[in-house]
Each structure stands twice: as C-alpha cells, then as structure tokens.
C-alpha cells in the first residue's frame, strides 16, 4: 500500500462534500438547518482550500488527481495548482460571507417551505464552481456548466415574483445559447483531436497547428468556445440577461451570481487558453485580440448603461458588465502580467460586488423596497453599516487607492506597457472607464448620505442583524486588506499561471 497524500485529495473532497450536502438537504424541511449544513460545508471547503493553497505554494507544484482507477486519456482528471487553490479559497470565503450576511433576505424573500430547496441550489452551484475551477476534462466542464446554469436560474426565480420569472426566462435562454455553442465547440474539437482531457487535447492542437491540418475547423472551434464562454460570462454585447435577473432576484443570489458564477466561467476560459489552446495558437488565430476589443467596448458601454440607470440594482448589474470588460481586456493583452491583472481583478470584483449587492439589498429594504436611487436618499444615515459598505465598495470599484479595485487597475495600466500596440488603447479606455465609474458611483454614494426630510414620516433606523453586520465588516476588512497587502496574492497568481502553462 502506497502512501496516501491527503492534500492531493482535497479538490476531490471539496467537490464531493459540496455535492453531498446538496443531496442530503431535501431530507431537512427547515431552512435554518439547511443553512447550517451549507455553512458547515463551505467552512470545511474553505479550510481545506487554505491547506491546499499553503501546500502547493510551499512546494511550488501543481498536480493532477485521477478520478477513478484509470489514468489520463481514459479516465477523468482533476488538476490543482496555486491559481486554482487561491480561486477556491476566495470563492468559499465570498460564498460564506455572502450567504451568512444575506441570510435575512433569504428568510424574507423565499417562502419557508422552499428555503431548504434554495440551499440545495446554493450547494450545487458551489460544487459546480469548484468543479469548473479544478476540472481537467472538457466534457466534465460542460456537464458542470449545465449544473451551474440550472442552479443559477433556480436561485434567480426562488423569489417567486412574476418579475423574477421574466428575469429567469431571459437568463435561461441566453445561457442555454451559450452552453449550446460550447457543446458544439467541444464536439468539433473532439472530432479533430480525438481527446477530451486538456493535456492530450493541447498536444494534438499543437500538432495540428504546426502541420496546418484542419486549420479552419480549429479557428472556428476556438471561436465558438470563446463566444460561448463570453455569452455565459456576460461580455458586453451579450450582457442583456444580467440587469433583469439581478434586479428581480434575492440580493444574496445576485451577489453570488455576479461575484462568483460569472467568474467561474472566466476561470474556465483562462484554463482553456493556457492548458488547451495555448497562448501562441490563440494569438495566431486572433481570438485574443477580439476578446480584447470586446473587453474595451464592455468597459465603456457597461459604464454608459450604468450611468443611464436610475435603479440601483440594475446599475450594479451594468457595473458588473463593465468589470467583466476589464477582465477580458486583461486576458486579451496576452502578456503574463495582463493575465495576472485579470486574475487579480476576478478576486477584487468577487470581493467587492457581493458586498455591494448585500448593502444595496439592505438599504432598499430600509427604504420600503423602493429601488430607485431617488428613494434611497438618506438610506446611509438610517442604515449606516450598509451605507459604509456601499461606499467602500463604490470607492473600490472606482479605483481609489487603499482599496482592492485600485490595485487591479494599477496592474492593468502596468500590463499595457508590455502589450505592444495596445498600450494607448488600454490607457485611454482605462481612464475613460474610471471617470465613468466615478460618474455613476459617486452620485449614488452622495445620494445615500444625503439627509432627507419628509413630512409625516419619521426616518426610522434600520434593524440589522448581527450576522449581516459582522459579514459586512469582514468584507470591508478584506477589501482594504487586499488593497494594502496585495503582494502575496500577485505572487501566488504569477506562480499559478506559470505552472498552468
């Protein structure tokens, strides 16, 4: 009997614990117990991911894990390295804080007998995201993409209002379009390479690329898969599903969907770039340039849409579109440092946007469920913690120093120096986008801190639950902490990307 390396089992354990807790949840009828199960599960995964992260960083290694008795081209595989472990850790932290902080919204918006079902979806979506992070097999990725699609639709419509149903339908149709394209891409890729696992496909793709055989199918395949992933992660021209869905969903769901789910598809995309198609092929096929252009367009257009919006949740949704644009711009720069900036921005946006949605939900609740920014005037004074959280998030998104959003923008600007021919575009659009960000975030920040006097109605203080308070404080601390001590994150991401190649 050989020595069992338990650390290498962590990816497998994380996925199976998440799935397992999803499966057993229907046995409990009570939403509170279901929440406890979920919380324990996420905590376990968080601890395990931290251990995994420490180990892989210490050893500077990445490893594959065989799912079953059969080695690579025959069986499924998982793969973990510093980047994957860091993402898993961040996702579990954000998941834990968002769900714990937003638990009151769930109890309030979801009917009691369906709360346990809501947590099944949470567990499943978490398992699905972990699988997308760790997977090393393209068809497994497709299956888990579908799991995430169904679960995220369920999270949106769990509120049960008519508006939520419309939002879900829109979201469902567009995401299914995306998964259809990904599936078609997988099929053509299989038919020209004959493999389903990343390393083997990469080998065949390199051979095909060098020999020039099947060059047109290869181009189309790459295009389809990245269009599919772009649709699923709401890159600019495909963003129309986001505002309706996020506006009508429970704030907790919106936070998870915007902060984490969109990012999990992008992480899959990054893995595909490095471990399947390789940067050289992608550059040669000009796919990265196209992503770069759409990223730039998204940065500007998302902000422009957000400026026109008067409802806060929709504004946040459009702001997500802009931030997704930043990430794609970083990916499109095709340099190592651009990719590092993109990965760091994934973390930054996950940490910030979830907090923004929670605070926004809390303030909307304080002001009698009116979403227009106009009605939210003075919300920050009546609900100070949510107001502070929103302000911190907004400043971070605008890119004020000390907050995490600043670091990623700094790195984007630095990366542009290493991207010949793209530098001017990056710097100009980055500047425009930051001004636009400030233009739509700052008025709403000022609005929520503006005292408002209304006759006949006294401004009552909001009652916030201790869980919400603790989570928002933690979010703020993480935000500032990552904004000041960003070095270790950058070095882990750099190590992870170099190991991914």
């Amino acid at each position, binding site marked *: *009997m*050989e020595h*069992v390396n338990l650390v*290498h*089992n962590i990816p*497998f354990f994380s996925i*199976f614990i998440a*799935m*397992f807790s*999803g*499966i*057993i949840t*229907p*046995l409990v009828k009570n939403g509170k117990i279901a929440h406890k199960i979920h919380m324990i599960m996420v905590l376990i995964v968080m601890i395990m991911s931290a251990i995994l992260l420490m180990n892989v960083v210490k050893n500077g290694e990445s490893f594959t894990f*065989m*799912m*079953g*008795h*059969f080695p690579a*081209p*025959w*069986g*499924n595989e998982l793969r973990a390295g510093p980047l994957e472990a860091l993402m898993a850790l961040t996702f579990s932290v954000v998941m834990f804080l968002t769900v714990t902080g937003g638990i009151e919204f769930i109890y309030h918006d979801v*009917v009691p*007998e*369906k709360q346990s*079902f*809501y947590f099944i*979806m949470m567990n499943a979506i978490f398992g699905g995201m972990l*699988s997308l992070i760790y997977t090393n*097999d393209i*068809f*497994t990725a497709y*299956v888990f993409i*579908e*799991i995430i699609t*169904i*679960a995220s639709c*369920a999270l949106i419509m*769990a509120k*049960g*209002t008519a508006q939520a149903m419309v939002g879900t339908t829109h979201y469902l149709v567009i995401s299914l379009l995306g998964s259809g394209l990904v599936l078609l891409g997988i099929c*053509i890729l299989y*038919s*020209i390479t*004959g*493999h389903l696992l990343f390393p083997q496909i990469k080998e065949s793709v390199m051979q095909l690329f060098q020999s020039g055989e*099947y060059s*047109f*199918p290869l181009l*189309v395949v790459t295009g389809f898969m990245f269009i599919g992933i772009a649709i699923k992660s709401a890159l600019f021209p495909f963003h*129309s599903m986001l505002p309706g869905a996020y506006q009508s969903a429970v704030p907790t769901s919106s936070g998870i969907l915007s902060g984490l789910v969109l990012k999990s598809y992008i992480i899959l995309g990054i893995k595909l770039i490095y471990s399947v198609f390789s940067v050289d092929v992608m550059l040669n096929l000009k796919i990265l340039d196209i992503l770069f252009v759409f990223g730039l367009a998204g940065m500007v257009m998302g902000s422009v849409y957000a400026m*026109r*919006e*008067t409802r806060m949740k929709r504004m946040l949704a459009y702001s997500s579109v802009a931030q997704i644009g930043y990430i794609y711009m970083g990916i499109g720069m095709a340099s190592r440092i651009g990719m590092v900036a993109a990965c760091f921005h994934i973390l930054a946006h996950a940490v910030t946007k979830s907090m923004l949605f929670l605070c926004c939900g809390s303030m909307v609740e304080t002001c009698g469920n009116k979403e227009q920014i*106009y009605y939210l*005037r003075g919300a920050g004074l009546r609900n100070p913690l949510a107001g502070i959280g929103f302000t911190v998030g907004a400043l971070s998104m605008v890119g004020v120093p000390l907050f995490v959003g600043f670091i990623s923008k700094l790195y984007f600007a630095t990366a542009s120096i290493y991207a010949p021919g793209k530098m001017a575009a990056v710097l100009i659009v980055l500047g425009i986008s930051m001004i636009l960000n400030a*233009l739509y975030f700052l008025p709403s920040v000022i*609005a929520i801190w*503006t005292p408002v006097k209304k006759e006949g109605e006294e401004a009552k203080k909001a009652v916030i639950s201790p869980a919400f308070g603790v989570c928002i404080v933690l979010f703020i601390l993480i935000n500032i902490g990552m904004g000041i001590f960003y070095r270790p994150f950058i070095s882990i991401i750099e190590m992870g990307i170099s190991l991914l190649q």
Partner: protein
Amino acid sequence: MNEKKTFWQHLQAWVNGEEAILHADEYIKKREQPHQKRWIKKPNMQRIKENKGLYWFLCVLVSLVFITIMLLVVSHLPTFGQPINPTNNEVMERYLEKGIEETGAINFVAGMILDYRAFDTFGESNVLFLAVISVLILLKRDKKNINAREDRETEEDERFDRSDHKSILKIGAKYLSPVVILYGIYVVLNGHLSPGGGFSGGSIIGAGLILYAAANGHEAMRRFFTFKTFTLISVGCLLTYCGCKSYSFFTGANHVGYEIPKGIPGNILSSGFILPLNICVGLIVACTMYGFYALFTKGDM
C-alpha cells in the same frame, strides 16, 4: 448634448458642495428622460424587436452565416466513417480491448460511462436531481403561487379522474402499465449486458408510472407514492451513487482499498459497481419522470 450639459453642471454643483439635496428630484427626473429616449437613439434589442421585419432579417442573416460557416467547417472535417479518423485512437482501443477485463461490462458504453468516465455521469444525475428540485420550487403550491382559476381546474380534473369517463384508457393502462414497467426493470437490470441502462430503463419505468397515474388519477397513485417516498428514494439512491463513486475515486486515485469483484462477464451479477449504479440511476430517473408529471399536472406530489 443637452443631457450631457446638465450632467456637467450638476457635477460642478456637487463638487462645489452646493447641490445634491436641493435639486436631487429634478436631477433624477432629468436622468429618467434619456432613459425613455434611449429606445430611439440606440440600436437596442427591444427597438429592433418591435420592428419585426428588420429583426427577422437580422436573425435569418445570423443563422444563415452561421450555417454557411459550419458547412465549410464540415467540409474540412475528417471523412465520415473512416477508421483512420482522429477520434478512433488509443482511448477507444483501450475501452474496447480491455473494457471487459477492467469493468466487467459487456456493453462497452455502460462500462465507459459508469466506470472510466464516471465523474461526468455523476454530474449528469445531479443535473436531473437539480432539475426536479427546480421544478418543485417553481410549481409547488405556496402563497406566491396560488391562482383561483387553477384550483378550480384541478378540482375539475380530479372529479373527472373519479368518474368513469375514460374506460378505454383505464383498461388499456391496467394491462399495459405492468408490462411497460416490467420492460423498464429488464432494461435497467441488463444495462451492463445489453443496450439501455439506468437512464433509458428509468425513463421507461417512469412512462409506465405516468400511464398508470393518467388512467387512475393521483389518488390511486398516492396510495403508494407520495412526496415522502419520492424524497427518500431519490436521496437514498443519489447517496448510494455518491458513496460508491467516492469509494472508487478515492481508492483508485490513491491506489488503496479492495478491488470490487468483477464476476464473470455476461452474468447478471457481474461488473462490480455498474449494476447497483444502474439500479440507482434507474430509480432516480423513474421517480424524477413521475415527479415531473405530478408537478406539471397538479403542482404537488
């Protein structure tokens, strides 16, 4: 332009600290105006959709371009049905040549999806489980999902179920549904020996249950199949599945533990975990299919 100017003025105003409270109302109103103008100015999806002809033209164009590109791709793809194609490589050879020895299943497809690539299949049964839970969230009656008209219709349906109006269906179902269910069970149990397996057999069993329920009404069904049975069977089977697969993944990856006896290929009791897994999948699928039917007709189980 006008909009931009006012925006700039307001920007100046609040930088100087004069504004934000006083004119906020007007400011919001002014921001709402371009919101309505937007439909005209921008090539918005909604605007195009209202203009039917253009929208049709665009969609047909996109689809035709798509089809053309794809036909070009197909003309570059490997020739249909040739043994030298890239798909027919060492992966397939091992599945076919060592499959029986390594999995014990005569049906290579069953061996492949339940042993070699079992993680995908685990995900797939989770998709099914999630779908039924989502349908449950959507359609189960609660205080946000109540409609007087629908209640009336359900009541009418139940009265119709109790009456003798559908004697042909009843007699047909009486003789047919046991046969259908029996065939489904056969397909499930022979999943590793013949075409079929957990999923197709489960759907057939589910179809038999649906037939029985359609003929005899939900009351008859509820005598032996309630929401509780459904939960217990689905969760139990998925847990068994999860347990079996975790065991084989863990032992496989770490090279520890006992090998599951494969039995003699061709026997019913052979091929390790594949038979129990097929039974689990079959039960899950049967319950799920019937669950879909019950939720779609009655909004309850």
